[in-house]
């Protein structure tokens, strides 16, 4: 689904954020992206979202080379990659329903299609009863679920979650993880950048660790950090 070949990213100010990254993420996988702040997680996500250009290497999405694409094609790539942020990024003057429907309107779905699909997605994230609430009337966990609903309403094959539980208490974070797992079980590939050690350790999913812009670990059913055996 996603393939990075020898990818490096150097910012214009000369800072190198990623060195020679190689990875392949298969369809339907759930991958944690871990590493301390400044390790390159955000840069990697920006490359996947085509927010930043790639200095060297090749990037493939769904078999397509998207290393360099003209600006006008970027929106169509973003429709294949849903994204959820730590700060939710909801429109405060729109209801829950409208926030989700908005994503479908933008991509040119018919009103009938929108009326059909939005309620289904809202029930998937357990927000059917809050459809006409405004974001500021919701708890953090609920807001994040709206954001998740919005990111998957157009049925993207890949979902990127950038510290989706960063602003939430552990119980609420657990709810969010349940929703993400559910989405993953329906076939969506998920890449989740996180600092939440407990979540990573308990889920036993693939873990990719970055450190100073280098890929230092890629482990199936891994933990947040390498266990150093006591001698």
């Amino acid at each position: 689904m996603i393939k990075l070949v020898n990818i490096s990213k150097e910012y214009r100010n000369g800072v190198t954020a990623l060195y020679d990254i190689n990875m392949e993420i298969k369809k339907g996988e759930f991958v944690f992206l871990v590493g301390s702040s400044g390790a390159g997680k955000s840069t990697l996500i920006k490359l996947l979202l085509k927010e930043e250009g790639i200095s060297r290497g090749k990037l493939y999405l769904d078999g397509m080379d998207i290393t360099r694409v003209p600006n006008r094609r970027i929106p169509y790539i973003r429709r294949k990659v849903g994204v959820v942020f730590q700060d939710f990024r909801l429109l405060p003057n729109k209801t829950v329903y409208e926030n989700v429907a908005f994503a479908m309107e933008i991509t040119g779905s018919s009103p009938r299609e929108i009326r059909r699909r939005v309620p289904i997605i809202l029930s998937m994230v357990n927000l059917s009863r809050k459809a006409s609430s405004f974001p500021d009337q919701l708890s953090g966990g609920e807001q994040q679920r709206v954001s998740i609903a919005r990111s998957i309403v157009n049925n993207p094959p890949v979902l990127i979650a950038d510290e989706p539980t960063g602003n939430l208490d552990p119980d609420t974070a657990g709810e969010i993880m349940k929703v993400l797992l559910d989405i993953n079980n329906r076939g969506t590939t998920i890449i989740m950048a996180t600092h939440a050690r407990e979540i990573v350790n308990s889920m036993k999913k693939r873990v990719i660790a970055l450190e100073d812009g280098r890929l230092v670990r890629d482990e199936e059913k891994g933990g947040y950090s390498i266990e150093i055996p006591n001698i």
Partner: protein
Amino acid sequence: MWRNRSMGIASITSISAVLMILGVVLILILSINNAVLDTKLKFDEVEVFLVEDLSNESMDIIEETVKEYPGVLSILFRSKEQALEIMKEEWAEEAYLLDGLETNPLPDAYIIKVNDIEYADELVNDVKTLDGVEEVKYYKDVIDKLLIFAGYIQFGGIMIIGILVFISVFIISNTIKITVSSRRREINIMKYVGATNGYIRGPFIMEGVFLGIIGAMISIAIVYFGYEYFYNSMNDKLYDLFTFYLVDPKLIFADLAIMFGTIGSGIGALGSLVSLKRFLNV
């Protein structure tokens, strides 16, 4: 949209100003064209207007002098009464206006036909010096002067309009910029969800076009009614030569409306595009 009302008003005003000046220049040029077309028909004619109650002797002298010139085809006397008749014919439906005159303000005149314009300038200069000649009208002069005048107006008009268009685009782009930055969050989200630039631009361009069209409507109203008023009041002064060539406001209204609408919305759209360019490059 009305969150930044003063900027909106500034935009509309600047577009109106551009279009109003364009309208005035256009009317001037059209009127001059009218005059040029009409006088071109009389290209081979020299009109010699005589002072009031000129003696037969003086008239004879003028007639003889002219006849001796090479290139003169014919010389005809046109009395002031005949001149009025001709004018009535030309004015057709509005001729009743002339009935109200107490005295005939038109002068007696000789109409000289030349078959060779080469000599016309010389003839005109000589006849001017003769006794009893009030004024000589040779239309080649008039045409030349009109054309030069039209050229100045066109050039000046284009310069002024160019500068004003630039200013309008600038003002509108700033107006739209305010709206854009107030909706930055929304635009940002739209981009992540995969909205095309066209989709994002749409509403802002509509806003620019909307401002442009309002500006166009205001300027059409001002130019049209202002000019109509001017036209009517000028036409009351019957003997004024220039008013005769003024274009009829009714004839130009539709063209003016189409042109103003197009240019106004064009300026609006351009202003929006300029302000959006920076925001969309993510």
